[in-house]
Protein backbone atom coordinates (compact mmCIF):
# COMPACT_ATOMS: atom_id res chain seq x y z
CA UNK A 1 0.00 0.00 0.00
CA UNK A 2 1.39 3.40 -0.94
CA UNK A 3 1.37 6.59 1.06
CA UNK A 4 1.82 5.21 4.53
CA UNK A 5 3.10 8.65 5.44
CA UNK A 6 -0.05 10.66 4.81
CA UNK A 7 -1.57 9.81 8.15
CA UNK A 8 -2.70 13.19 9.41
CA UNK A 9 -4.95 13.32 12.49
CA UNK A 10 -8.21 11.77 11.48
CA UNK A 11 -11.29 13.86 10.93
CA UNK A 12 -12.74 11.06 8.87
CA UNK A 13 -15.60 8.65 9.49
CA UNK A 14 -15.44 5.07 10.76
CA UNK A 15 -17.11 2.03 9.22
CA UNK A 16 -18.05 -1.08 11.15
CA UNK A 17 -18.76 -4.54 9.78
CA UNK A 18 -21.52 -6.39 11.54
CA UNK A 19 -21.47 -10.17 11.81
CA UNK A 20 -23.97 -11.46 9.30
CA UNK A 21 -25.14 -14.96 8.72
CA UNK A 22 -25.87 -15.77 5.13
CA UNK A 23 -29.53 -16.68 4.67
CA UNK A 24 -29.88 -20.36 3.98
CA UNK A 25 -31.35 -21.02 0.57
CA UNK A 26 -32.78 -24.46 -0.01
CA UNK A 27 -30.74 -26.48 -2.47
CA UNK A 28 -32.49 -27.50 -5.65
CA UNK A 29 -31.53 -28.13 -9.26
CA UNK A 30 -33.16 -24.86 -10.25
CA UNK A 31 -31.21 -22.98 -7.61
CA UNK A 32 -27.98 -24.50 -8.91
CA UNK A 33 -28.82 -23.41 -12.45
CA UNK A 34 -29.56 -19.88 -11.28
CA UNK A 35 -26.40 -19.71 -9.18
CA UNK A 36 -24.40 -20.91 -12.17
CA UNK A 37 -25.95 -18.20 -14.31
CA UNK A 38 -25.10 -15.49 -11.78
CA UNK A 39 -21.53 -16.78 -11.65
CA UNK A 40 -21.33 -16.79 -15.44
CA UNK A 41 -22.57 -13.18 -15.48
CA UNK A 42 -19.29 -12.20 -13.89
CA UNK A 43 -17.06 -14.66 -15.70
CA UNK A 44 -13.69 -13.60 -17.05
CA UNK A 45 -11.37 -15.23 -19.51
CA UNK A 46 -11.49 -16.23 -23.14
CA UNK A 47 -14.40 -18.62 -22.69
CA UNK A 48 -16.50 -16.35 -20.47
CA UNK A 49 -19.02 -15.57 -23.19
CA UNK A 50 -19.41 -19.27 -23.98
CA UNK A 51 -19.96 -20.06 -20.31
CA UNK A 52 -22.58 -17.32 -20.09
CA UNK A 53 -24.38 -18.69 -23.14
CA UNK A 54 -24.27 -22.23 -21.74
CA UNK A 55 -25.65 -21.11 -18.37
CA UNK A 56 -28.40 -19.22 -20.17
CA UNK A 57 -29.24 -22.21 -22.33
CA UNK A 58 -29.67 -24.27 -19.16
CA UNK A 59 -32.02 -21.67 -17.68
CA UNK A 60 -34.13 -21.87 -20.82
CA UNK A 61 -34.08 -25.66 -20.86
CA UNK A 62 -35.64 -25.83 -17.40
CA UNK A 63 -37.53 -22.55 -17.64
CA UNK A 64 -40.63 -23.71 -15.77
CA UNK A 65 -38.59 -24.72 -12.72
CA UNK A 66 -36.11 -21.88 -12.90
CA UNK A 67 -38.71 -19.13 -13.00
CA UNK A 68 -40.20 -20.40 -9.74
CA UNK A 69 -36.75 -20.22 -8.18
CA UNK A 70 -36.18 -16.73 -9.59
CA UNK A 71 -39.46 -15.53 -8.11
CA UNK A 72 -38.72 -17.17 -4.74
CA UNK A 73 -35.17 -15.89 -4.54
CA UNK A 74 -36.13 -12.40 -5.74
CA UNK A 75 -38.82 -12.12 -3.08
CA UNK A 76 -36.22 -12.93 -0.40
CA UNK A 77 -33.78 -10.24 -1.54
CA UNK A 78 -33.33 -7.20 0.63
CA UNK A 79 -35.56 -4.60 -1.05
CA UNK A 80 -32.65 -2.15 -1.24
CA UNK A 81 -30.26 -4.67 -2.76
CA UNK A 82 -30.90 -3.41 -6.27
CA UNK A 83 -27.94 -5.05 -8.04
CA UNK A 84 -28.99 -8.53 -6.86
CA UNK A 85 -32.63 -7.89 -7.62
CA UNK A 86 -31.65 -6.66 -11.08
CA UNK A 87 -29.73 -9.89 -11.70
CA UNK A 88 -32.93 -11.86 -11.08
CA UNK A 89 -34.93 -9.69 -13.48
CA UNK A 90 -32.15 -9.86 -16.04
CA UNK A 91 -32.13 -13.66 -15.80
CA UNK A 92 -35.90 -13.86 -16.27
CA UNK A 93 -35.75 -11.43 -19.21
CA UNK A 94 -32.89 -13.17 -20.94
CA UNK A 95 -34.65 -16.52 -20.72
CA UNK A 96 -36.93 -15.22 -23.49
CA UNK A 97 -39.38 -17.89 -22.48
CA UNK A 98 -43.16 -17.63 -22.01
CA UNK A 99 -42.78 -19.13 -18.53
CA UNK A 100 -41.15 -15.86 -17.44
CA UNK A 101 -44.07 -13.70 -18.54
CA UNK A 102 -46.13 -13.82 -15.29
CA UNK A 103 -43.11 -12.92 -13.16
CA UNK A 104 -42.13 -10.03 -15.41
CA UNK A 105 -45.71 -8.81 -15.72
CA UNK A 106 -46.19 -8.89 -11.98
CA UNK A 107 -43.08 -6.76 -11.47
CA UNK A 108 -44.15 -4.17 -14.02
CA UNK A 109 -47.62 -3.84 -12.55
CA UNK A 110 -46.38 -3.59 -8.97
CA UNK A 111 -46.51 0.11 -8.06
CA UNK A 112 -43.12 1.69 -7.43
CA UNK A 113 -42.74 2.39 -3.69
CA UNK A 114 -42.41 6.05 -2.66
CA UNK A 115 -38.97 7.62 -2.86
CA UNK A 116 -36.83 6.65 0.11
CA UNK A 117 -33.94 8.98 -0.52
CA UNK A 118 -33.96 12.50 0.90
CA UNK A 119 -31.79 13.54 -2.05
CA UNK A 120 -32.93 11.67 -5.16
CA UNK A 121 -30.46 13.58 -7.32
CA UNK A 122 -27.73 11.69 -5.49
CA UNK A 123 -29.54 8.38 -5.17
CA UNK A 124 -33.07 7.52 -6.14
CA UNK A 125 -34.85 4.39 -4.97
CA UNK A 126 -37.54 5.21 -7.53
CA UNK A 127 -34.82 5.25 -10.17
CA UNK A 128 -33.52 1.85 -9.13
CA UNK A 129 -37.04 0.39 -9.05
CA UNK A 130 -37.59 1.85 -12.50
CA UNK A 131 -34.49 0.12 -13.88
CA UNK A 132 -35.86 -3.21 -12.65
CA UNK A 133 -39.08 -2.55 -14.52
CA UNK A 134 -37.56 -1.30 -17.78
CA UNK A 135 -35.46 -4.46 -17.82
CA UNK A 136 -38.63 -6.49 -17.32
CA UNK A 137 -40.41 -4.60 -20.10
CA UNK A 138 -37.61 -5.42 -22.51
CA UNK A 139 -37.83 -9.05 -21.41
CA UNK A 140 -41.48 -9.06 -22.36
CA UNK A 141 -40.52 -7.36 -25.60
CA UNK A 142 -38.49 -10.45 -26.46
CA UNK A 143 -41.77 -12.39 -26.36
CA UNK A 144 -43.74 -9.90 -28.42
CA UNK A 145 -44.58 -12.49 -31.05
CA UNK A 146 -47.26 -13.58 -28.54
CA UNK A 147 -50.55 -11.77 -28.09
CA UNK A 148 -50.37 -11.93 -24.28
CA UNK A 149 -46.96 -10.28 -24.31
CA UNK A 150 -48.27 -7.49 -26.54
CA UNK A 151 -51.18 -6.91 -24.17
CA UNK A 152 -48.80 -6.82 -21.21
CA UNK A 153 -46.76 -4.14 -22.97
CA UNK A 154 -49.93 -2.10 -23.36
CA UNK A 155 -50.52 -2.55 -19.64
CA UNK A 156 -47.03 -1.17 -19.11
CA UNK A 157 -48.04 1.94 -21.06
CA UNK A 158 -50.56 2.68 -18.32
CA UNK A 159 -47.89 2.81 -15.61
CA UNK A 160 -47.14 6.33 -14.40
CA UNK A 161 -43.47 6.25 -15.34
CA UNK A 162 -41.87 7.89 -18.35
CA UNK A 163 -39.10 5.29 -18.55
CA UNK A 164 -41.45 2.30 -18.30
CA UNK A 165 -43.60 3.81 -21.02
CA UNK A 166 -40.55 4.56 -23.14
CA UNK A 167 -39.35 0.96 -22.85
CA UNK A 168 -42.83 -0.34 -23.67
CA UNK A 169 -43.16 1.92 -26.72
CA UNK A 170 -39.78 0.80 -28.00
CA UNK A 171 -40.64 -2.87 -27.50
CA UNK A 172 -44.01 -2.52 -29.18
CA UNK A 173 -42.61 -0.63 -32.15
CA UNK A 174 -39.84 -3.21 -32.53
CA UNK A 175 -42.30 -6.09 -32.65
CA UNK A 176 -43.41 -7.65 -35.92
CA UNK A 177 -46.74 -5.80 -35.64
CA UNK A 178 -45.09 -2.54 -34.60
CA UNK A 179 -46.22 -0.34 -37.46
CA UNK A 180 -49.80 -1.51 -37.15
CA UNK A 181 -49.81 -0.82 -33.42
CA UNK A 182 -48.65 2.77 -33.69
CA UNK A 183 -52.10 4.35 -33.57
CA UNK A 184 -53.11 2.27 -30.57
CA UNK A 185 -49.90 3.24 -28.77
CA UNK A 186 -50.56 6.91 -29.48
CA UNK A 187 -54.04 6.56 -28.01
CA UNK A 188 -52.64 4.99 -24.85
CA UNK A 189 -50.09 7.74 -24.21
CA UNK A 190 -50.89 11.08 -22.57
CA UNK A 191 -50.61 14.10 -24.83
CA UNK A 192 -47.37 15.36 -23.28
CA UNK A 193 -45.65 12.01 -23.84
CA UNK A 194 -46.54 11.49 -27.49
CA UNK A 195 -42.90 12.30 -28.23
CA UNK A 196 -42.02 8.80 -27.03
CA UNK A 197 -43.31 7.52 -30.37
CA UNK A 198 -40.68 9.55 -32.17
CA UNK A 199 -37.63 8.75 -30.03
CA UNK A 200 -34.85 7.37 -32.16
CA UNK A 201 -33.18 4.18 -30.98
CA UNK A 202 -29.62 4.89 -32.04
CA UNK A 203 -26.02 3.83 -31.65
CA UNK A 204 -23.74 5.81 -29.39
CA UNK A 205 -21.73 6.69 -32.49
CA UNK A 206 -24.72 8.63 -33.82
CA UNK A 207 -25.28 11.02 -30.90
CA UNK A 208 -23.43 14.26 -30.17
CA UNK A 209 -20.09 13.57 -28.49
CA UNK A 210 -17.92 15.87 -26.42
CA UNK A 211 -15.53 17.74 -28.66
CA UNK A 212 -12.21 18.30 -26.96
CA UNK A 213 -13.10 17.48 -23.34
CA UNK A 214 -9.76 18.93 -22.31
CA UNK A 215 -11.40 22.37 -22.42
CA UNK A 216 -13.74 21.14 -19.68
CA UNK A 217 -10.94 20.64 -17.21
CA UNK A 218 -10.47 23.01 -14.32
CA UNK A 219 -7.31 25.09 -14.23
CA UNK A 220 -5.75 22.63 -11.82
CA UNK A 221 -6.88 19.71 -13.96
CA UNK A 222 -5.29 21.21 -17.05
CA UNK A 223 -1.91 20.98 -15.43
CA UNK A 224 -2.33 17.21 -15.62
CA UNK A 225 1.03 15.56 -15.49
CA UNK A 226 -0.13 12.37 -13.82
CA UNK A 227 0.97 9.27 -15.67
CA UNK A 228 -1.64 6.91 -17.12
CA UNK A 229 -2.45 3.66 -15.37
CA UNK A 230 0.21 0.99 -15.75
CA UNK A 231 -0.08 -1.23 -18.79
CA UNK A 232 -1.66 -4.60 -18.26
CA UNK A 233 0.83 -7.44 -18.23
CA UNK A 234 1.64 -8.28 -21.84
CA UNK A 235 0.52 -4.91 -23.23
CA UNK A 236 3.68 -2.95 -22.45
CA UNK A 237 5.00 -2.94 -25.99
CA UNK A 238 1.69 -1.78 -27.52
CA UNK A 239 1.02 0.94 -25.00
CA UNK A 240 4.44 2.44 -25.56
CA UNK A 241 4.27 2.17 -29.32
CA UNK A 242 3.40 5.84 -29.72
CA UNK A 243 6.65 6.89 -28.10
CA UNK A 244 8.98 4.14 -29.11
CA UNK A 245 12.66 4.92 -29.55
CA UNK A 246 13.70 5.15 -33.21
CA UNK A 247 14.91 1.99 -34.88
CA UNK A 248 18.31 1.81 -36.55
CA UNK A 249 18.25 1.09 -40.28
CA UNK A 250 19.85 -2.22 -41.13
Amino acid at each position, binding site marked *: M*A*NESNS*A*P*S*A*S*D*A*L*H*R*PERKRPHAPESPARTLLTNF*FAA*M*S*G*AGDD*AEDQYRRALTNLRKYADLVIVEIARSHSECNA*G*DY*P*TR*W*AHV*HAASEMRHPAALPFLRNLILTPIPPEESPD*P*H*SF*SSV*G*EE*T*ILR*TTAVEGIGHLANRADAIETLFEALRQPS*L*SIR*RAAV*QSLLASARGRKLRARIAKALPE*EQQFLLD*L*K*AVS*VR*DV*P*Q*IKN*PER*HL*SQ*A*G*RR*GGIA*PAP*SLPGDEA*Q*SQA*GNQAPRRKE
Partner: protein
Amino acid sequence: MATCTVPTIPDKTVTGDSLYGPRACWQAFIDWAWYAHGFQKTYWDDGFGYEDCCNTDLPLARTFGAMWLLNYSADDYWNEEWSNNCLHWARRYVRDQINDLRSLCGDGTNIAWAGSGRVELYLGCFYKKDCAGRAETLLHESRHLGGKPHDANFPAGSVFGEGKSGADSTWGYEGAWMYGALYLWWFYADGRRTTTALRQAARQRANLVIDNAFATHPGFTIA
Protein backbone atom coordinates in the same frame (compact mmCIF):
# COMPACT_ATOMS: atom_id res chain seq x y z
CA MET B 1 -16.74 12.13 12.88
CA ALA B 2 -19.60 9.78 12.02
CA THR B 3 -19.71 6.05 12.52
CA CYS B 4 -21.63 3.80 10.15
CA THR B 5 -22.11 0.13 9.39
CA VAL B 6 -21.48 -1.88 6.23
CA PRO B 7 -24.96 -2.46 4.78
CA THR B 8 -26.12 -5.60 3.02
CA ILE B 9 -23.52 -6.36 0.38
CA PRO B 10 -25.07 -7.15 -3.01
CA ASP B 11 -24.02 -10.35 -4.77
CA LYS B 12 -20.50 -9.59 -5.94
CA THR B 13 -20.82 -11.67 -9.08
CA VAL B 14 -23.64 -9.33 -10.06
CA THR B 15 -21.92 -6.04 -9.21
CA GLY B 16 -18.72 -7.08 -10.93
CA ASP B 17 -16.70 -6.96 -7.72
CA SER B 18 -15.79 -10.62 -8.00
CA LEU B 19 -14.45 -9.88 -11.49
CA TYR B 20 -12.78 -6.50 -10.98
CA GLY B 21 -11.70 -6.90 -7.34
CA PRO B 22 -9.00 -9.50 -8.04
CA ARG B 23 -7.84 -7.60 -11.11
CA ALA B 24 -7.40 -4.41 -9.11
CA CYS B 25 -5.57 -6.27 -6.36
CA TRP B 26 -2.33 -5.63 -8.19
CA GLN B 27 0.25 -3.59 -6.34
CA ALA B 28 1.45 -1.60 -9.35
CA PHE B 29 -2.15 -0.54 -10.04
CA ILE B 30 -2.89 0.21 -6.39
CA ASP B 31 0.21 2.37 -6.08
CA TRP B 32 -0.69 4.26 -9.23
CA ALA B 33 -4.39 4.72 -8.37
CA TRP B 34 -3.59 5.91 -4.84
CA TYR B 35 -1.29 8.63 -6.10
CA ALA B 36 -3.20 9.57 -9.25
CA HIS B 37 -6.49 10.30 -7.48
CA GLY B 38 -5.19 11.81 -4.27
CA PHE B 39 -6.34 9.19 -1.81
CA GLN B 40 -5.39 9.99 1.76
CA LYS B 41 -5.01 7.31 4.37
CA THR B 42 -6.95 9.27 6.95
CA TYR B 43 -10.09 9.08 4.80
CA TRP B 44 -9.77 5.41 3.89
CA ASP B 45 -8.85 3.76 7.19
CA ASP B 46 -11.09 3.11 10.21
CA GLY B 47 -12.90 0.32 8.42
CA PHE B 48 -13.07 1.80 4.91
CA GLY B 49 -10.42 -0.60 3.67
CA TYR B 50 -6.93 0.86 3.98
CA GLU B 51 -5.83 -2.01 6.20
CA ASP B 52 -7.35 -4.63 3.86
CA CYS B 53 -7.24 -3.03 0.44
CA CYS B 54 -8.15 -6.12 -1.60
CA ASN B 55 -11.22 -6.99 0.46
CA THR B 56 -14.18 -6.28 -1.80
CA ASP B 57 -16.52 -6.11 1.17
CA LEU B 58 -14.97 -2.72 1.89
CA PRO B 59 -15.15 0.66 0.14
CA LEU B 60 -11.50 0.96 -0.90
CA ALA B 61 -11.33 -2.27 -2.88
CA ARG B 62 -14.74 -1.50 -4.41
CA THR B 63 -13.35 1.85 -5.53
CA PHE B 64 -10.20 0.28 -6.93
CA GLY B 65 -12.39 -2.17 -8.87
CA ALA B 66 -14.33 0.71 -10.41
CA MET B 67 -11.07 2.45 -11.28
CA TRP B 68 -9.78 -0.69 -12.98
CA LEU B 69 -12.94 -0.75 -15.08
CA LEU B 70 -12.54 2.95 -15.86
CA ASN B 71 -8.94 2.51 -16.96
CA TYR B 72 -8.98 -0.71 -18.94
CA SER B 73 -12.38 -1.05 -20.63
CA ALA B 74 -11.34 0.33 -24.00
CA ASP B 75 -9.79 -2.25 -26.30
CA ASP B 76 -6.73 -0.03 -26.82
CA TYR B 77 -6.99 1.61 -23.42
CA TRP B 78 -3.59 3.27 -23.75
CA ASN B 79 -4.93 5.45 -26.56
CA GLU B 80 -6.49 8.13 -24.38
CA GLU B 81 -6.35 11.06 -26.78
CA TRP B 82 -9.08 13.65 -26.19
CA SER B 83 -10.10 13.20 -29.83
CA ASN B 84 -11.01 9.58 -29.17
CA ASN B 85 -14.34 8.46 -27.69
CA CYS B 86 -15.37 8.79 -24.06
CA LEU B 87 -14.51 5.17 -23.23
CA HIS B 88 -10.88 6.09 -23.91
CA TRP B 89 -10.51 9.52 -22.34
CA ALA B 90 -12.78 9.26 -19.30
CA ARG B 91 -9.97 7.77 -17.23
CA ARG B 92 -7.73 10.67 -18.15
CA TYR B 93 -10.39 13.25 -17.33
CA VAL B 94 -11.01 11.67 -13.93
CA ARG B 95 -7.39 11.44 -12.89
CA ASP B 96 -6.64 14.97 -14.11
CA GLN B 97 -9.63 16.32 -12.24
CA ILE B 98 -9.69 14.47 -8.93
CA ASN B 99 -6.78 15.15 -6.65
CA ASP B 100 -8.47 14.52 -3.31
CA LEU B 101 -10.74 11.49 -3.05
CA ARG B 102 -12.41 10.67 0.27
CA SER B 103 -14.75 8.04 1.61
CA LEU B 104 -17.36 8.98 4.18
CA CYS B 105 -20.55 7.55 5.61
CA GLY B 106 -23.13 9.92 4.14
CA ASP B 107 -26.73 9.29 5.08
CA GLY B 108 -26.72 5.68 3.89
CA THR B 109 -28.13 6.37 0.46
CA ASN B 110 -26.12 9.40 -0.73
CA ILE B 111 -23.75 8.62 -3.54
CA ALA B 112 -21.19 11.38 -3.86
CA TRP B 113 -20.37 15.06 -3.65
CA ALA B 114 -17.84 17.24 -5.45
CA GLY B 115 -16.54 20.66 -4.61
CA SER B 116 -13.53 22.64 -3.49
CA GLY B 117 -11.31 20.41 -5.58
CA ARG B 118 -12.31 17.17 -3.93
CA VAL B 119 -14.72 14.30 -4.34
CA GLU B 120 -16.40 12.54 -1.47
CA LEU B 121 -17.86 9.06 -1.96
CA TYR B 122 -20.51 7.74 0.39
CA LEU B 123 -21.86 4.33 1.32
CA GLY B 124 -24.51 4.48 -1.41
CA CYS B 125 -21.78 4.58 -4.04
CA PHE B 126 -19.97 1.56 -2.64
CA TYR B 127 -22.96 -0.67 -1.92
CA LYS B 128 -25.85 0.40 -4.18
CA LYS B 129 -23.97 0.67 -7.48
CA ASP B 130 -22.16 -1.89 -9.57
CA CYS B 131 -18.60 -1.32 -10.77
CA ALA B 132 -19.66 0.52 -13.92
CA GLY B 133 -22.04 2.68 -11.90
CA ARG B 134 -19.22 3.67 -9.55
CA ALA B 135 -17.00 4.53 -12.52
CA GLU B 136 -19.82 6.68 -13.88
CA THR B 137 -20.03 8.45 -10.52
CA LEU B 138 -16.32 9.30 -10.65
CA LEU B 139 -16.79 10.85 -14.09
CA HIS B 140 -20.02 12.66 -13.13
CA GLU B 141 -18.36 14.25 -10.10
CA SER B 142 -15.22 15.07 -12.09
CA ARG B 143 -17.37 17.07 -14.49
CA HIS B 144 -18.61 19.11 -11.55
CA LEU B 145 -15.01 19.77 -10.55
CA GLY B 146 -14.52 20.92 -14.13
CA GLY B 147 -16.82 23.81 -13.31
CA LYS B 148 -20.14 22.62 -14.67
CA PRO B 149 -22.99 22.69 -12.15
CA HIS B 150 -26.47 21.38 -12.93
CA ASP B 151 -28.50 24.17 -14.51
CA ALA B 152 -32.12 23.03 -14.58
CA ASN B 153 -34.95 21.39 -12.71
CA PHE B 154 -35.93 17.77 -13.31
CA PRO B 155 -38.74 17.40 -15.85
CA ALA B 156 -42.28 16.21 -15.22
CA GLY B 157 -42.33 12.60 -14.08
CA SER B 158 -38.58 12.41 -13.46
CA VAL B 159 -37.50 9.67 -11.07
CA PHE B 160 -35.01 12.16 -9.64
CA GLY B 161 -37.75 14.44 -8.35
CA GLU B 162 -40.03 16.41 -10.65
CA GLY B 163 -39.39 20.14 -10.40
CA LYS B 164 -36.38 19.82 -8.13
CA SER B 165 -33.02 21.28 -9.03
CA GLY B 166 -30.19 19.01 -10.13
CA ALA B 167 -31.00 18.34 -13.79
CA ASP B 168 -29.04 19.42 -16.83
CA SER B 169 -30.97 21.55 -19.30
CA THR B 170 -30.05 19.62 -22.44
CA TRP B 171 -27.68 16.93 -23.75
CA GLY B 172 -25.79 19.71 -25.51
CA TYR B 173 -25.11 21.45 -22.20
CA GLU B 174 -22.39 18.79 -21.80
CA GLY B 175 -22.91 18.55 -18.07
CA ALA B 176 -22.30 15.81 -15.53
CA TRP B 177 -25.37 13.78 -16.51
CA MET B 178 -24.34 13.78 -20.16
CA TYR B 179 -20.81 12.73 -19.25
CA GLY B 180 -22.09 9.85 -17.11
CA ALA B 181 -24.67 8.65 -19.62
CA LEU B 182 -22.23 8.87 -22.52
CA TYR B 183 -19.65 6.82 -20.62
CA LEU B 184 -22.16 4.12 -19.71
CA TRP B 185 -23.39 4.07 -23.27
CA TRP B 186 -19.89 3.57 -24.69
CA PHE B 187 -19.20 0.95 -22.03
CA TYR B 188 -22.33 -0.89 -23.16
CA ALA B 189 -21.50 -0.52 -26.84
CA ASP B 190 -17.80 -1.20 -26.85
CA GLY B 191 -16.62 -2.15 -23.35
CA ARG B 192 -13.96 -4.87 -23.24
CA ARG B 193 -12.61 -7.15 -20.52
CA THR B 194 -16.10 -7.16 -19.05
CA THR B 195 -19.28 -9.21 -19.21
CA THR B 196 -22.47 -9.07 -21.24
CA ALA B 197 -24.53 -8.64 -18.08
CA LEU B 198 -22.55 -5.65 -16.79
CA ARG B 199 -22.85 -4.02 -20.18
CA GLN B 200 -26.60 -4.61 -20.18
CA ALA B 201 -26.87 -3.09 -16.69
CA ALA B 202 -24.95 -0.05 -17.93
CA ARG B 203 -27.37 0.31 -20.82
CA GLN B 204 -30.38 0.30 -18.49
CA ARG B 205 -28.79 2.91 -16.22
CA ALA B 206 -27.79 5.14 -19.14
CA ASN B 207 -31.34 5.03 -20.52
CA LEU B 208 -32.69 6.01 -17.10
CA VAL B 209 -30.44 9.07 -17.09
CA ILE B 210 -31.38 9.98 -20.67
CA ASP B 211 -35.09 9.75 -19.81
CA ASN B 212 -35.03 11.54 -16.48
CA ALA B 213 -32.03 13.82 -15.95
CA PHE B 214 -32.48 16.40 -18.72
CA ALA B 215 -35.05 19.17 -18.62
CA THR B 216 -35.49 18.64 -22.35
CA HIS B 217 -35.43 14.99 -23.39
CA PRO B 218 -32.49 14.42 -25.79
CA GLY B 219 -34.84 12.74 -28.27
CA PHE B 220 -33.04 9.42 -28.52
CA THR B 221 -32.74 6.17 -26.66
CA ILE B 222 -30.15 3.42 -26.67
CA ALA B 223 -30.68 0.87 -29.40
